[in-house]
């Protein structure tokens, strides 16, 4: 069926996303869903630019993750998402507004980092283990056939050790580092500006003439 003339009004979204942007996203949604009411995983196959991306699987997974990203009560993956869900995920990438206060900024940042954390933590146990981390690095480097598995592992191991040293400090000889928790993850990024790296900024929409 058709999606109707106007998209649903996003009462749950903060006012930083303007209605023009929502209209554009709505049109994009319609294009991806081929005029259906919901999008399935297969619809993302029609985006050539996305084919390039080594973590394509994780990104698409994020759209369908029920508890973590869609803020629903149940666990697991949804089969299909509607426009509201689509907007919920896109809202993780909205840019900072000028008039945000400290608390809002902090919450904003935590949200973005949490989204990223879930990309690593594939079994959703709240910890990024060495194996999970290795998986991500392998995916990122999957395009290069010349890189041996051993080299990939040593890159991953080295990175984990560094992370451990930041989070836990000096470890005893028989201490086992279980994994990076979300608090540790936050610690890693303290003082580093990630907000500008994790947003999609729309061009000035006022150049399109519109009247009310």
């Amino acid at each position, binding site marked *: 069926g058709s999606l109707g003339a106007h998209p649903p009004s996003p009462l749950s979204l903060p006012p930083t996303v303007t209605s023009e942007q929502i209209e554009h996203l709505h049109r994009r949604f319609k294009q991806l869903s081929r005029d259906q009411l919901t999008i399935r995983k297969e619809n993302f196959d029609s985006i050539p*630019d*996305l084919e*390039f991306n080594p973590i394509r699987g994780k990104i698409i997974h994020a759209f369908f993750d029920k508890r973590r990203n869609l803020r629903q009560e149940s666990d697991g993956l949804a089969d299909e998402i509607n426009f509201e869900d689509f907007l919920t995920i896109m809202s993780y990438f909205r840019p900072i507004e000028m008039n945000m206060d400290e608390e809002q900024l902090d919450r904003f940042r935590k949200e973005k980092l949490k989204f*990223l954390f879930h990309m690593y933590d594939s079994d959703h146990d709240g910890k990024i283990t060495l194996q999970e981390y290795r998986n991500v690095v392998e995916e*990122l480097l999957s395009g*290069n056939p010349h890189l041996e598995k051993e080299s990939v592992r040593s890159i991953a191991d080295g990175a984990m050790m560094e992370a451990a040293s930041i989070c836990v400090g000096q470890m005893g000889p028989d201490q086992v580092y279980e994994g990076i928790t979300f608090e540790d993850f936050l610690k890693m990024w303290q003082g580093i500006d990630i907000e500008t790296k*994790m947003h*999609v900024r*729309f061009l000035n929409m006022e150049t*399109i003439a519109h009247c009310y």
Partner: protein
Amino acid sequence: EDVGSAVARVGAVWLALVLALIVLPSALGVSLGISEAYMWVLVKTLEWATIRIEKGVKKPRPQMLKTPTANGIIERDETPMEKEIARLHRVDFEFSDIFYFCRKGFEAIVEDEVTQRFSSEELVSWNLLTRTNVNFHYISLRLTVVWVIGVIVRYCFLLPLRFTLAAIGITSMIVGTTMVGQLPNSSVKNYLSEVVHLTCSRILVRALSGTIHYHNKENKPRKGGICVANHTSPIDTIILTNDGCYAMVGQVHGGLMGVIQRATVKACPHVWFERSEIKDRHLVTKRLREHVADKSKLPILIFPEGTCINNTSVMMFKKGSFEIGGTIYPVAIKYDPQFGDAFWNSSKYNIVSYLLRIMTSWAIVCNVWYMPPMVRKEGEDAVQFANRVKSAIALQGGLTELPWDGGLKRAKVKDTFKEEQQKNYSKMLVRNGSVG
């Protein structure tokens, strides 16, 4: 009985007017200036409409840019991957690298370069056609009245007129070429064939209210050459044959198109391929090469993109056309979307609804640039030559250049492309000495 004869008389007068004012000047290659007058009125009306729309906006607006919408709605950070990842390499390289790919992924989901090219170009201001009224809402009574008048003019006056002209044009083409085809091969036959083709093209262009500006006519394609142009719609052919004679290349169709093809090939050596022949690339190249080698034959017309693009960009030129040899005469065609959208979105509209849309638009306005001939250089392969010609056409027409294959309209990205970026990323990591 009186009503019947009155209607017949009106019909006859109208037909006579059409013949006298449009068909005859087309045959003689003369312009009576009716199109120019129509365009002038049209431009004035649209300017007035734009001013009324601008006045209707309450808040003050920044200066309107002319070309933002054609190129995207989101701001892309063009920093190359190396720089951006290097900037983040403070805590831990891979943890931060995921930011880059994550963002690129989201940008692609919001908007990607390729899919964008297969929907019509967005207008910066409304041109009083309902179909382009995406962003515009009710403004004022006066504007709505003008719009209603526009609808009446377009559907009740222009559409029948154009339809009549198109019918006359196609019929004369079939009849004319069949008659000329009866003659034995001679220079007289060639001359007459050119006259018939030109006249019918002119009638058909007028049937679309086409206003075409040709630039650099001294570079017009010559006999024995290959004319190459960017493709936006099936109308492209008529646009070009309006100004010169070409040997067309294409697949044999059924129906009306097939009738036209069979008639025209008797008068002029067009190159029509059966469906089975098209699959055999060598056969195709061989036949085209034979045609080009004969210097007395008309230049062939090819659209190397292989499919209709929405006229904001030029996509990959298939190399087949460039393997034939001979001199290439590039031509750039750029339509003005303000008066009518010429792009044929074949997945959305079939040919009949497409032609209906074209005939109920205001007009088709376009610019055609003839460019200086190009030949393949020493040591250049077909693909490089194709890209060189493509860049030249894109530059001339003011279109963006994309490396993508127009076939992506229907198919998926080739696997060979996929690994490129991943290879780059891993090469970079290895180079940074992170491999122990």
